């Protein structure tokens, strides 16, 4: 159409909206790492979202096929780097299942303590970063204040703060220390002498006593906050059937109302760690949900994580009690060059972000013939295209944030 500029109204009323292709990422702060979303939008409304992944791809599976299994453990730390302990545990259990190894009871209890503590740390980051996505800064600072204490405790236990490689095949690399200096963050928060000596479990108990009442504060800050509810409730609704079909796991699955937690429903080799422990599996819908919330929306997914922190604290208290009564060692020796039998196993464990699976094929050699890591976030992310359709651009950080993804695990 050719425009004649003699009549100014022609230009004034020729306002059309065109479809636009917008790149969100890979360096967008609210995409939690290097995730690129290609949006096809009409104004503010999304027609289509295409996630592009692979920016952190390093073919961890090929690396695993060229290393013996204990050598691969440090690489699993770098998959879900916010929950390294849970990744270590997943691979260790898969190898133990393959070679039929028994782990002493004390090691199982300590593994539970470490894994649940890491789950709290991971959910704290999930909560803080989600607040950040939605434009509130303070929950992030609170979350990192708490997480710092957990990292200090991990540092005392194994020397590392992010990539632990602490849980290993046959147990844990070593026992927790008998005496530590109280974590500086905890000393400051509870007004204690920073040079005070406590036992590791004593420090942990002190931290839990301090953390438990704080969860109510987070609820006031986020969960019950009117703006937060407006941004999350009723947005990004994932139905129960779609969640199962897409292979969503963890809080995303339970937020859609599927009562499934591998700590309770998983394979024997994993669930026996949790035998004799009392804990609930939080599943949507919740009584406390605001009236706007729908089953399977952002709010439900977020709330599942918050409730899981409470359950992890419960498990930790029982674990501390059980550990002090347990005797024996925390490790059975496992030789680096142990030959894997000609067999294959697949084992999934409940990591903070969902079910992480390891598939190992033994070939009579020390290196696995096929080493595969099935990522939970990979499946959880694949629903974005469906959830974001028809929503506004501003809802995308809210939806992607509620899935709580870690790109290191997706790209492997």
């Amino acid at each position: 159409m050719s425009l004649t500029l003699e009549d100014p109204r022609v230009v004034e009323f020729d306002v059309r909206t065109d479809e636009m292709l917008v790149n969100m990422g890979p360096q967008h702060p609210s995409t939690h790492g290097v995730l690129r979303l290609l949006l096809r939008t009409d104004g503010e409304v999304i027609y289509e979202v295409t996630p592009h992944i692979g920016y952190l791809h390093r073919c961890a599976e090929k690396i695993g096929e060229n290393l013996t299994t204990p050598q691969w453990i440090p690489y699993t730390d770098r998959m879900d780097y916010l929950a390294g302990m849970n990744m270590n545990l997943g691979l260790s259990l898969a190898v133990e299942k393959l070679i039929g190894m028994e782990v002493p009871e004390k090691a199982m209890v300590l593994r539970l303590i470490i894994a649940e503590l890491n789950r709290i740390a991971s959910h704290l980051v999930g909560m803080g970063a989600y607040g950040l996505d939605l434009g509130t800064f303070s929950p992030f600072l609170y979350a990192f204040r708490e997480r710092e204490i957990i990292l200090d405790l991990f540092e005392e236990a194994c020397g590392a703060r992010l990539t632990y490689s602490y849980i290993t095949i046959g147990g844990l690399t070593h026992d927790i220390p008998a005496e530590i200096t109280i974590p500086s963050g905890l000393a400051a928060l509870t007004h204690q002498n920073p040079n005070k000596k406590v036992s590791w479990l004593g420090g942990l108990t002190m931290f839990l006593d301090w953390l438990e009442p704080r969860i109510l504060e987070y609820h006031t800050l986020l969960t019950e906050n009117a703006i937060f509810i407006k941004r999350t409730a009723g947005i990004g609704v994932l139905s129960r059937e779609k969640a199962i079909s897409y292979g969503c796991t963890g809080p995303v699955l339970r937020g859609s109302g599927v009562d499934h937690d591998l700590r309770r429903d998983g394979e024997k080799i994993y669930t026996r760690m949790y035998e004799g422990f009392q804990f609930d599996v939080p599943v949507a819908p919740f009584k406390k949900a605001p009236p706007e919330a729908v089953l399977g929306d952002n709010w439900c997914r977020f709330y599942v994580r918050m409730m899981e922190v409470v359950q992890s604290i419960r498990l930790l208290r029982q674990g501390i009690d059980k550990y002090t009564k347990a005797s024996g060692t925390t490790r059975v020796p496992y030789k680096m060059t142990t030959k894997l039998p000609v067999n294959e196993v697949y084992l999934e464990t409940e990591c903070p972000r969902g079910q992480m699976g390891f598939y190992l094929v033994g070939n009579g050699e020390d290196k696995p013939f096929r080493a595969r890591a099935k990522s939970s976030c990979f499946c959880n992310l694949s629903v974005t295209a469906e959830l974001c359709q028809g929503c506004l651009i501003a809802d995308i950080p809210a939806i992607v944030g509620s899935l709580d993804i870690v790109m290191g695990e997706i790209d492997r």
Partner: protein
Amino acid sequence: MSPADIHQQLVAQFGDKITGAKLDAIDPWIEVAPAAIVDVCTYLRDDPKLKFDALNDLCGADYLETDPKKAAKFPHQPHVEVVYHLYSYFLKHYIVVKVKLPRWQNDQVGELPEVPSVAGIWLIADWHEREAYDLVGIQFTGHPNMRRILCPEDWEGHALRKDYEFPLEYHGIRGK
């Protein structure tokens, strides 16, 4: 249902399309003819006694021994596999289904083996089949969007093939 029962039911339904099984493995598996995989998987999902509503994992595996010293002892014929790990949320049972394919279609090196896609049965298979295509080099026919997912689209080769050679150069970046 126990894996043996599942195997029996599948054999009764599909006959010689079920080409093998190893029921004494740690995770028992059933082997299915590639052409029948969609029918078998639909049956596994929909049959009221099986109800495998979830595909936990789908991956490819390349069986080839590249070291000539070990090749004589290698227990498998060279082939690639697609491994389906199924789970039922209703009945809480597991089964592994496998499909064995030649390493190259018609023995032409470079021609990828083909297997029908199950992306229409479980949505999770969409991305996982793309990953298997990308890393192991298996073509899934009938897949809505058979493109690479983790590697760049112009990447050459499939990294999890045992005879994969790392490229010496990619867009001016030296590989070694």
